[in-house]
């Protein structure tokens, strides 16, 4: 389906939904739809990213396929989310090449080659240094430059995407966002308020908890990395750190969270009703989960094997997985949180407006 056809189809389905409104008790999306009589392209992007894909609506819908009205919001919104990642991601031309499994695989292979070259140049031989510290394999300064550039790349990608998306979902009657809107949106996001799940699909209700494992696992790992940077540059303590240190403990707990969360979400995906998913979104979601799973698994493996003779190989593989995750981040499912959080901020603003006296 072309972009224009998708938009037309979206508007058609929304007309059915707006004439029905039986779903209004389910989630934010339905109230956002009710607040608009005419749906524009930007509104569709807003609804799609506000949707957390819990699927309650499609199992409750008397007009879902095989009904001739063919209303299938989870699939529609998943397609629209894919379209919005393509449309808003920056730099745009990479979007097609870097999405999905193959994009990540090529990025990972490229990273392995790059890091091997760095190691070769730095040490004169590949993985020559056995049982030594991490920075003997890959010099710290080089790593900082490489990962610093990757961080700038992904943050810029997300920021530009965020700006483009935010400009698109601004409605004619949108008011200024207030601090309390952002706080409310943050609460919705951190608690995954709208990822309820449906009783009509096996394990659907567990998605919220697995997702919490992924998010908070990732944040713990991020905290571990920041702490390691602090130890290294401020306290001048060189990695690797002992197992009992806060850096390693945070890393272990975060890594375990990622492992459990990603594996759980992958398992739930197997049982999903494929009629309610967009195949492209399904595959890109799976690719992202595998990516995260590989990062977490290789990180924990590195910890386990860091004083053995294969440390250098495992280190290069782990860092390559991380590098590929960052490099594809503006285009992969990774960026979904950017759009979803912005949609929640817009929603919190609209909710405040519509619930205030005079409305």
């Amino acid at each position: 389906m072309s972009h224009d056809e998708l938009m037309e189809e979206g508007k058609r389905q929304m007309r059915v939904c707006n004439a029905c409104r039986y779903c209004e008790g389910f989630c934010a999306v339905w109230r956002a739809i009710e607040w608009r009589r005419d749906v524009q392209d930007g509104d569709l992007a807003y609804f799609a990213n506000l949707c957390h894909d819990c699927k309650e609506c499609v199992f409750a819908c008397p007009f879902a396929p095989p009904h001739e009205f063919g209303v299938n919001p989870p699939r529609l919104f998943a397609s629209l989310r894919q379209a919005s990642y393509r449309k808003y991601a920056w730099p745009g031309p990479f979007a097609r090449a870097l999405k999905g499994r193959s994009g990540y695989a090529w990025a990972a292979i490229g990273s392995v080659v790059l890091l091997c070259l760095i190691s070769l140049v730095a040490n004169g031989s590949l993985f020559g240094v056995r049982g030594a510290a991490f920075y003997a394999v890959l010099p710290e300064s080089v790593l900082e430059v490489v990962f610093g550039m990757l961080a700038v790349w992904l943050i810029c990608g997300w920021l530009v995407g965020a700006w483009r998306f935010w400009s698109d979902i601004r409605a004619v009657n949108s008011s200024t966002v207030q601090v309390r809107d952002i706080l409310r949106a943050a609460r919705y996001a951190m608690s995954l308020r709208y990822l309820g799940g449906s009783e009509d699909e096996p394990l659907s209700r567990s998605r919220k908890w697995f997702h919490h494992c992924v998010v908070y696992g990732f944040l713990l790992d991020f905290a571990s990395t920041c702490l390691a940077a602090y130890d290294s540059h401020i306290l001048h303590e060189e990695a690797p750190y002992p197992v009992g240190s806060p850096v390693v403990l945070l890393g272990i707990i975060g890594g375990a969270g990622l492992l459990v969360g990603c594996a759980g979400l992958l398992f739930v995906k197997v049982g999903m009703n494929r009629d309610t998913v967009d195949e492209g979104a399904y595959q890109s979601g799976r690719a992202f989960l595998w990516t995260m799973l590989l990062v977490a698994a290789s990180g924990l493996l590195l910890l386990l094997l860091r004083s053995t003779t294969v440390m250098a190989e495992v280190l290069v593989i782990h860092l390559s997985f991380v590098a590929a995750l960052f490099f594809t981040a503006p285009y992969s499912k990774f960026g979904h949180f950017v759009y979803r959080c912005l949609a929640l901020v817009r929603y919190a603003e609209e909710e405040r407006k519509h619930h205030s006296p005079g409305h």
Partner: protein
Amino acid sequence: MTTSIACDVLVVGGGNAAMAAALSARDHGASVIVVERAPRFYRGGNSRHTRDFRIMHTRTTEHMLDVYPPEEFLDDLRRVAGGEMDEELARLVVERSEGLPMWLSQQGVRWQEPLSGTLHLARTNLFMLGGGRAMMNAYYRTAEKKGIQIWYEAMVEDIEVTAGVFGGAQIRRGGEVCLVRASAVVFAAGGYEANIDWLRQHWGDAADNFVIRGTRYNQGNVIDLLLAAGATPIGHPRAFHAVAVDGRAPKFDGGIVTRLDSVPFGIVINLDCERFYDEGEDFWPKRYAIWGGLIARQQEQVAYSIIDSKVIDKFMPSVFPPMMAHSIADLAMQLGLDADRVQATVDAYNAAVQPGNFRPDALDDCHTVGIDPPKSHWAQRIDTPPFYAYPLRAGITFTYRGVRIQRDARVQLVGGDAMGNVFAAGEMVAGNVLRRGYLAGFGLTMGAVFGRIAGEGAARVAR
């Protein structure tokens, strides 16, 4: 060879009343088979298009605001039925309605929070979270968990009734026919509104132009079998409840999204380009309930609602976009009507509109003088382009024809005796309580109340 299967209670039908009966019978110890004519997706008959129960309550509850005392509920029923109501049965349903929210919650049905919602009925009506199909999913999930057998795409072809006692039913399931022997049976298989041949017997060729808002599986064959077995009929065979729907609606299963409430904000004309009824007579729900019948009596059972841009956002949007034009003549052409005659009707109406204070939420003073039919409220000139039009048809919601039951939901024989082990509930007995009229949410309430009574009674007989 025909296979033969036995169970305690056979339930024929798969909607709200049938599942209430099945679960109630199961909870009273019976083994239960449910025979649903539709495939899995369309299970639940018209219940899948419903949204709310009307519930009596004498205090504010978790789900409902304020109070809705039994006498007020009964008064509301008397008003819509215009006297054609069975007081005793109505009172029974009203009294039993109070216990439904709790019982339905136990079956897994979830409710919408009272303050949200587009309908301001939080005091009298309880809305299912996600509507009727979500409710039916909960019913079926619980039924499967409790070991009730569900047969989809299964149809009762014949029943064995000897001297008023049910012995078994012949059921076609896929390519096979099997005989189900049961100690008791509950029939809750809906009305016959989807049976166009039957409608044609009473309405002639007009039947071909009706839209059936609900399931295509309400064919009425079960009503026929019961009447043939000696049950007392109830309800006029010509009687149905119909509303104005968008003329572009599909023949079946258009549900809620095809209804149109633009009528009071403009004029409605027929194929002769003439107005035919006071568009501003009354509020929803009275207005809602009469326009279906009015359109059913017009030539080709079609009418056209014409409004201007002043009022386009005053009613719920329809699933189909309106036709739009910058002149009445253009609009008439799009509708395939004679432009001069439509213009003349609009001009005559505009000339008759009196100045007033337009208030969509009240019976305001905007009315016409000197035309027939008049428009009593919300009469504003149709003068602000662009102009909009919706084609209208009669959308049948349900029929009243069915079988007579007694207080305990047993089917009554022509002689006046009750059939010992035959119960009925749902739309096919709705005519027992109200022989005309409609009150929002009352259909589901009646279905669940009599469904529960029937299920419990059937389980007792089976024991």
